[in-house]
């Protein structure tokens, strides 16, 4: 059971959260995006061994979304940061290819 720091409610067990997949996937402009680009937006995700920027939502609590950097090897949650802000640097932040 991971314990994740909700930016509002504090440390809560993983079971209270919904995992929202990779962070920083912006919805592209549908008018100017070709089929391949739209497919990338819908389906293509990275799967790094190491630090991963991902989204979580505190479903059982405040229902707020936030971003987190998690090391997929150790499961350590290195930092959390608000939606809409760029990915921060993390110690040892270099994903080893997907």
């Amino acid at each position, binding site marked *: 059971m991971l314990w994740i720091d909700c930016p509002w409610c504090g440390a809560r067990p993983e079971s209270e959260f919904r995992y929202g997949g990779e962070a920083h996937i*912006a919805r592209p402009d549908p008018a100017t995006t070709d*089929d391949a680009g739209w497919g990338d937006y819908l389906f293509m995700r990275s799967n790094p061994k190491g630090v991963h920027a991902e989204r979580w*939502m505190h479903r059982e609590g405040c229902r707020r*979304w936030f971003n987190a950097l998690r090391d997929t090897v150790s499961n350590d949650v290195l930092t959390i940061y608000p939606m809409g802000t760029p990915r921060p640097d993390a110690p040892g932040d270099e994903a080893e290819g997907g």
Partner: protein
Amino acid sequence: MRFRLKEGGRIDRAQRLRFTFNGRSYEGYAGDTLASALIASGTHLTSRSFKYHRPRGILTAGAEEPSALVQLGEGARTEPNLRATQVELYDGLTAAGVNAWPSANCDLAAWTGRLAPLFPAGFYYKTFLWPASFWKSLYEPAIRRMAGLGRAPEAPDPDSYDKMNIHCDVLVVGGGPAGISAALAAGEAGARVMLVDDEATLGGALVGLRHRVDGVDGAAWAQAAAGRLAAMEEVRVLTRTTLFGYYDHNSLSAFERRTDHLGPGAPAGTSRQRLWNIKAGRVVLATGAHERPLVFADNDRPGILLASAAQRYLNQYAALPGERAVLFTNNDAAYEVAHDIVEAGGTVGAVVDCRPEPAAPLAPALKEAGVALHTGSAIAATHGTKRVRSVTVAKLDGDGGLSGEQYRIFCDSVLVSGGWNPAVHLFSQSAGKLTYEEARGIFLPGTATQALEVAGAANGSFGLAACLAEGAAIGARAAEAAGFGDGTPPPAPPVEAPEPGAITPYWLAPGLKPLGHGKAKHMVDHQDDVTAADIRLAAREGFRSVEHVKRYTTVGMGTDQGKTANVNGLAILADALGKTVPEVGFTTYRPPYTPVTFGALAGRDTGALMDPVRRTAMHVWHEAAGTVFEPVGQWHRPWWYPKRRDDKHAAVARECRAVREAAGILDASTLGKIDIKGPDATTLLDMVYTNAFSTLKVGRVRYGLMCGDDGMVFDDGTTARLGENHYLMTTTTGNAAHVLEWLEEWLQTEWPELKVYCTSVTEQWATVALAGPRARDVLAALAPEMALDAHSFPFMSVKEGVVAGVNARVFRISFTGELSFEINVPWSHGRRLWDALMEAGAEHGITPYGTEAMHVLRAERGFIIVGQETDGTTTPHDLGMDWIVSKKKADFLGKRAWNREDSRREDRKQLVGILTDDPKKVLPEGTQLVDKRGQPPIPMIGHVTSSYASPTLGRSIALALVKGGRARKGETIYAAPETGFLPCKITEPVFYDSEGAKRDG
């Protein structure tokens, strides 16, 4: 109790307990385990082994026991595969050894042992290959009868179980000297401390030794320490509790046996066992060490046990292992065991030490007491059948072989010591890395990946003084990390105990014949009957990875996870491969450390509490009406209402007729309802629905489809505009939470600039759908002030007013095709509304209808159900619902995806109606559809999504998704071969009132 000493031990001699084992009556004392009481009575044979049915006895005195597994109790409370070494004795206890029939003493299957050459390593993989059908019918049942362990109870479990969630600053695992000092140090600093130990009392190894701490007997010191811990407000000590799982982020699970030791005397109402979920700031692992056996020929006969176990039986339980013991060791510590036995008045025939020139400090004293010392020697054979009767001791030559010099020594017990393995199981579970220490041949905790430290023997510190000092230092450090104290440990108490002394790792003693020849077995894994020869065979057959050898030979795969077997097995494998132990590597320990009952894992989540049943305000009424409920998500919705014992078909037909001809009411409270407010509410709806809401007038209602950005339908429902910036959205029952999360996700992550608030009001409002040509009459009786005519209250509009004396919102929407009102009142008045409708409707023939009738009625009218007509790959166009897809809106979720080539394929599956040529045949939902009759394989062109006997039409109807189906109306296709290729016609997916003439009544 022949082998019970007249005095001593930590048992309560005032309390004699009677028990039955393998059908024989025994006596023991309070404080005994089943194993200690048996040993005190001279019984070592407990059970038969897993594969060869070899007679097996008690090997250890604790959790690591691989061999003495018993079936405890009878009937519904029987429990298989318990370790006799951990079963606390109570009066009236009944147990039997596992895997023996009719008994361990006279096991009819023992002939399998003589067939041993037929059961080499991996015999499952080699023998039962062909034919495959024989596996289920013949091989597996036979193997299960012959092998396997105990029997699972067949009756429902009469006991109760529960769970507890707890947080602490410092969790100490293990109540031996290191764990106690850690808990004392952390507790005295003021931290919240938990100390967990799997034995009945604290003390760990101390209770089996004659060491002294702080001037008193070690066990007495532990007892006093337990008293001090109990007096600390923030310290919780759990005994009889096994910490069995170490998970991420210092989450751990422990298994407490609350009443097992009381037997039938357990208090009613107390859960039998409890699972603890622990979240710890810091963890101190003080899990001790397990003595490892030596591997020699026929080292598994009853009467052969670990030296430390014999020492514990002697000192804790005042039971001698037998008349005359022989000790076999590779280290100094075992000499202390011989010394304790001699001191207690027992007889040690010989100490056999494989080291050429040992310098054990106690050796001279033993010699003086008349104990023969055979150095540079090994036990090359053991003799006896159900009990060891003698051993052959042989001198070793310089290369580890036998020199030829042999002695036969008579004995009835052999005490073996191969050194100590730190109990690194939990450290390994925590994802910590192990390191190997060549000198002592042990795996030690290396780099930790979680907030933990390892203290005492688990860390390789085998001396008592070191355990106490290390525990105190780590406990104080852990408390300091949590903000308590300055990290200075309390002074360690003085001890009187021998130092652990020297050891020379020794992995495999030669037998009289080369390994694998002759009948002798060098047992490595006592539980799974894996021998040294099996491991060598695996290496010869090309297995190199320790993980593969483990699975192929099954070494370490028993319920004991190889606690006594793994390191020996690994060293033997390394030798066979010509590698070092670290090169071969180590398998990963996984939870649980020892087996956990399913009862404890389930806790109180069983029966009615297994999963929440969500109930509406009218649930009690439905129950009283004898409703058959249908689970929809966690909700229980009325499925149909049987009347006068009619079956489902008759009940549904009656309910459908009532709606088409008179009036029916449906409990629709489970539909999701979301209140949407804000200046950008309309913008949000225009983005999430395929159609436009900006054109919707206040007071009006619109049906909408919701799609993902992949263009696939995922929900539908009606949305009412209650004000300029105020909407009420409804969702399907199963998707209510998902849709709210969907809106929130877009609002919070993609469109944070939109000023909109979404609030679930699903359970604020109880909803009753009142449908049928007489619906208006019924409602008029309850809402005299509300204008209900089709002009004042048109289709797809909403009104607020008083219904049945309660403030209500009424929607004129219809899922049946009939004139229909969906009446919403506060949940707390739902039952009142329902009762009032039943009363007011009585004269109009009002009939409650369930979800089955609702499904039939909507299918007649051709309305889809999301999740039934759709499956996540269905677009609005596939459903023939282009009319609801806006052409004007520049962007909304789903729109872009429909321009993809795949979305425009003409052979996509499209929604059509299906009418079987035979009107009486109702196709099963999910039926595959094909183009022509013939021999399979035949290409599938679609499948039936909904299918009913329609009472209105007097024939069967179905909806289906068929490739290119819309262009094929009127064509004949066939249902799948299982139906006998029933011919069907493709039709419009609307079977009733396609003009919508009925909706105004």
